[in-house]
C-alpha cells in the first residue's frame, strides 16, 4: 500500500519534471528516463556461431584478478557457447575513462566493471543494456540476491548493471589498546559520541597519541548520513528522478561535521589525505587506536597490521558506528554492465556469463578469495563461506552489517552524475572545517552550494 502510493507520487513528480522539461529536454534526457526496457535477445546466442567470444574489462588488483581469472577460466571450460577474455584496466577510473573514450572510437568491451559511483554516468552514456531487460527475458529470479544490493543498482525502477563485487565500510580498532586503557575490547563504540569517549579514555591513559585516525574521505559523510537515514541528494536520492541538488546540509550533517571538528580540535583524531592508507599505519605506529575503512581491503589490512611487524596491535573489526538514526551503511564496490553496442549474440553471451558470476558457488568462491560480500543467499550456506566465517569472523561483519541496515531511500544510496565533483566539494568542506576553523554549519552550506553547481552543470551537459 505504502510503496504503491510512493510509486504513484514518484510517477506524478516524474511526469511533472518531464512536463516542465519537455520543451528544452533533448532526446538524451527523455531516453535516459524512458521506462520501456530494450530487448534482450536471448535467442541470438542459439543462432550464432559458437563459441561467441566476448571481451570483459575489469579493474582488479593482484589477488582479486587471480580469483576472477580462475573463475572465468572455469566458466570457459564448463561450456562451449561463450568464451570470455578478460582485459584488466587495473583501476576503476581507467576502466570508466577508457569506456567513455571507446564510445567515440568504437573500441568497447561487451562487459565492463564500473565502480558504484559511475552508475548515473553509465546510464547517461545510453550504451547500456539494462540487466533488467535480460532478467525479464530470461525469467531470472532476483529474489535470492541481497535486496539492498539490487536496490543500489536500480534507478527509476530499472536494474542497470548486474551486481558482482560488493563491499562496505567497517570499524577497525586495536583491541590491545582498548584493553590497556581499561575499555572492553569486545564492546567497540557504536555511535560517534562513543568513539569520542573511547578516544578520550585511550588518550588520557597515554596509550596512543590520539584516539581516532580520520581519513579525510568524503565517502565518510555519505556513509554516516546513510547510517543516520538521511538521503544525500534530492529526488529520492536521485532514484525517482535525476537529482538536482545535494541534501547533506541537514541536522545529521551538521552533527557529523561538528563531531569531526571537535575530534580534531581536541586532538582526539589525526587526519590523513584520502588517497593513502596512513589511517591504518597510524594504528600500527600507536598514533591512533581506531579508524574506519572499506571491508574490501580487509585481507590486506589484516595481513599488514597482523603480520607480526606490529606486536602492539591486535585488530578488531566491528560494524561502522555513526550518527543515530534509521539507516544503514551503503553498498560499495563495483558492478558489471553489458554494452548495447555489442551484437545481440554477444549481449546474450554476456548475460550468460553474468548469470554464472551470480551463482551461489561462484559468489562463495569469489567472496572467500577476496573479502567481498557474497551477494546471493545460497552462497552463505556453502562450506567455503561457513569455514571462512568460523576461521575469520571479521569477514562476516560486513555481510551482517549490510543485511541489518534499514531499507529506505537513504540506504539505497545516492545516484549522482558528477559524483567525483560532489566529493571534491565535500572535501573542500572538510578542509575549511578542519584547517581554517570554519563553523560546521557554514562549511556544510558552502559544500552544498558548490556541490549543487556541479550537479546542475553535469545535468545541463547531458541535456537533462
Amino acid at each position, binding site marked *: 500500500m505504502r510503496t504503491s502510493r510512493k510509486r504513484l507520487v514518484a510517477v506524478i513528480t516524474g511526469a511533472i519534471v518531464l512536463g516542465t522539461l519537455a520543451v528544452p529536454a*533533448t532526446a*538524451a534526457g527523455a531516453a535516459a528516463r524512458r521506462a520501456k526496457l530494450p530487448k534482450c535477445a536471448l535467442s541470438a546466442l542459439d543462432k550464432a556461431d559458437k563459441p561467441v567470444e566476448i571481451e570483459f574489462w575489469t579493474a582488479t588488483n593482484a589477488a582479486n584478478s587471480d580469483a576472477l581469472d580462475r573463475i572465468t577460466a572455469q566458466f570457459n571450460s564448463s561450456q562451449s557457447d561463450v568464451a570470455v577474455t578478460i582485459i584488466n584496466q587495473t583501476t576503476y*577510473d581507467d576502466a*570508466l*575513462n577508457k569506456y*567513455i573514450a571507446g*564510445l*567515440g572510437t568504437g573500441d568497447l568491451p561487451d562487459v565492463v566493471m564500473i565502480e558504484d559511483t*559511475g552508475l548515473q*554516468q553509465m546510464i*547517461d*552514456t*545510453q*550504451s547500456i543494456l539494462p540487466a533488467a531487460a535480460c532478467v525479464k527475458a530470461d525469467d531470472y529470479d532476483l529474489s535470492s540476491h541481497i535486496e539492498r544490493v539490487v536496490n543500489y543498482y536500480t534507478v527509476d525502477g530499472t536494474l542497470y548493471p548486474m551486481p558482482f563485487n560488493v563491499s562496505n565500510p567497517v570499524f577497525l580498532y586495536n583491541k590491545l589498546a582498548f584493553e590497556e586503557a581499561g575499555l572492553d575490547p569486545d564492546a567497540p563504540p557504536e555511535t560517534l559520541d562513543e568513539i569520542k569517549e573511547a578516544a578520550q579514555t585511550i588518550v588520557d591513559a597515554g596509550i596512543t597519541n590520539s584516539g581516532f585516525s580520520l581519513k*579525510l574521505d568524503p565517502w565518510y559523510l555519505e556513509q554516516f548520513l546513510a547510517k543516520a537515514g538521511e538521503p544525500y541528494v534530492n529526488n529520492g536520492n536521485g532514484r525517482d528522478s535525476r537529482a538536482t541538488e545535494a541534501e547533506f546540509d541537514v541536522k545529521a550533517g551538521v552533527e557529523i561535521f561538528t563531531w569531526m571538528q571537535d575530534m580534531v580540535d581536541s586532538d582526539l583524531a589525526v587526519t*590523513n*589525505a584520502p*588517497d*593513502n592508507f*596512513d589511517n591504518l599505519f597510524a594504528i600500527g605506529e600507536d598514533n591512533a587506536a581506531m579508524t574506519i575503512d572499506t571491508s574490501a581491503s580487509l585481507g590486506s589490512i589484516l595481513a599488514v597490521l597482523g603480520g607480526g611487524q606490529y606486536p602492539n596491535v591486535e585488530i578488531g573489526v566491528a560494524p561502522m558506528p555513526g550518527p543515530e538514526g534509521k539507516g544503514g551503511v551503503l553498498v560499495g564496490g563495483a558492478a558489471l554492465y553489458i554494452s548495447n553496442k555489442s551484437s545481440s549474440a554477444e549481449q546474450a553471451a554476456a548475460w550468460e556469463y553474468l548469470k554464472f558470476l551470480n551463482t551461489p558457488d561462484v559468489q562463495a568462491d569469489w567472496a572467500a578469495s577476496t573479502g567481498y560480500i557474497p551477494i546471493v543467499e545460497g552462497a552463505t550456506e556453502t562450506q567455503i563461506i561457513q569455514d571462512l566465517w568460523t576461521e575469520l569472523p571479521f569477514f562476516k561483519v560486513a555481510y551482517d552489517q549490510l543485511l541489518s541496515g534499514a531499507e529506505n531511500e537513504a540506504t539505497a544510496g545516492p545516484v549522482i*552524475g*558528477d559524483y*567525483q565533483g560532489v566529493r*571534491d566539494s565535500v*572535501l*573542500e568542506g572538510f*578542509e575549511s572545517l578542519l584547517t581554517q576553523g570554519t563553523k560546521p554549519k557554514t562549511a556544510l552550506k558552502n559544500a552544498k552550494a*558548490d556541490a549543487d553547481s556541479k550537479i546542475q*552543470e*553535469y545535468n*545541463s*551537459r*547531458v*541535456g537533462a
Partner: protein
Amino acid sequence: MTATLDASERPAEIDKPVNTRRRRKLREAGLGYSLLVPALIIFGIFIFYPFIKNFILATHQVPPFPGLPEKNVGLDQFGDVLGSRDFLDSLWITVLFALMTVPTGIALGLGLAILAHQKLKGIAIFRTIFSSTVATSVAVASVMFYTLFNPNIGLLKSISPTPPFLENPGWALIAIAIVTIWQNLGLSFILMSAGLQAIPDELVEAAQVDGAGPWSRFRNVTLPLLSPTVFFAVVVGTIFAFQTFGQIDILTEGGPLGKTKVLTYAIYEALRQPPPNPGKAAVLAIALFAITLVLTMFQMRFLERRVHYQR
C-alpha cells in the same frame, strides 16, 4: 576555355616585360608555397587545427559522452571556469610553485657556475657533473626522488625527523619543488656558466686593478653584466614552472588534498576525471596560454633592450 585564352593573350600584347616578370614572380611564389605545403599540412593538423578547435571547445558546453548535443554558451564558460575556486586555487599553487623553484634554481645554478668558473685542473669534470641533470628525464628524476622520499625505505628517512613529504598536504608542493629544482639545476648551471664566460675578462681585471675586492667585483661588475642571462633564466624558468606536469603526475597526482594541483594538472584532470569536460579543459588551456604569452612578450620586450646593455 575561351575565357582563359582571352585573359592570357590580351595582357601579353599590351605589356610584355611586366607580364613575364609577374609570371615569374607568380611561378616562384607557387613553388615557394608548394614547398611549404608539407610543413603547412603538419602544422595544420597538429598545431593550427587543435588551436582553433580549442577556442571552439571553450565556447561550447561539451557533453561528457559522445552522441549528446553540444551547446554554444559563448563566453559564459570562461566566466564560470576562471571565476571558480578550483581555478584560483590551481593558479595560486602554480604561482607558489614558480616562486619556490625559479629563484632557488637560478641562485643555485649561479653558485655552481661561479664555483666552476675557475681555471683549475680537472674543473671540466665538475662542470660535467653539475650539468649532468640536463640529461635526466622528468620520469627518471621523479622515480629517484619517489624512492628517496618514501617514508618506509627512503634514504631521507635516516635524517630524522622527516615528515612524510609526498603524503603531507603542507609538504607535498615543496617536495615537488625540490625534485624540479634538482632537475633544472643542470640547465640553470649551463645558462649561468655561458653568461659568465661571455663577460670580458678585461672588465673584471680592470675592477681588480682599481682595487675592488672579490665581493665588490661580483656585485658591481659580474652581476650587472650577467643580468640579461638571469632575466632570461627567470622568464624561461617561470614558463617551465607553469608547464610542469610529469613530476606531479608521477609523484602526487595533484594530491594530497589537491595541494599540488597546478594548472597543467587541472587541465589534465578536467579531461581525465569522469565525467570528462573538454570545454572546461579548453578554457583552462587558454588561460595557461595567455599567461605564457604575457611572459614571453615581457621577456622579448625587456630582454631585447637589455641585450644592448654593454654598448
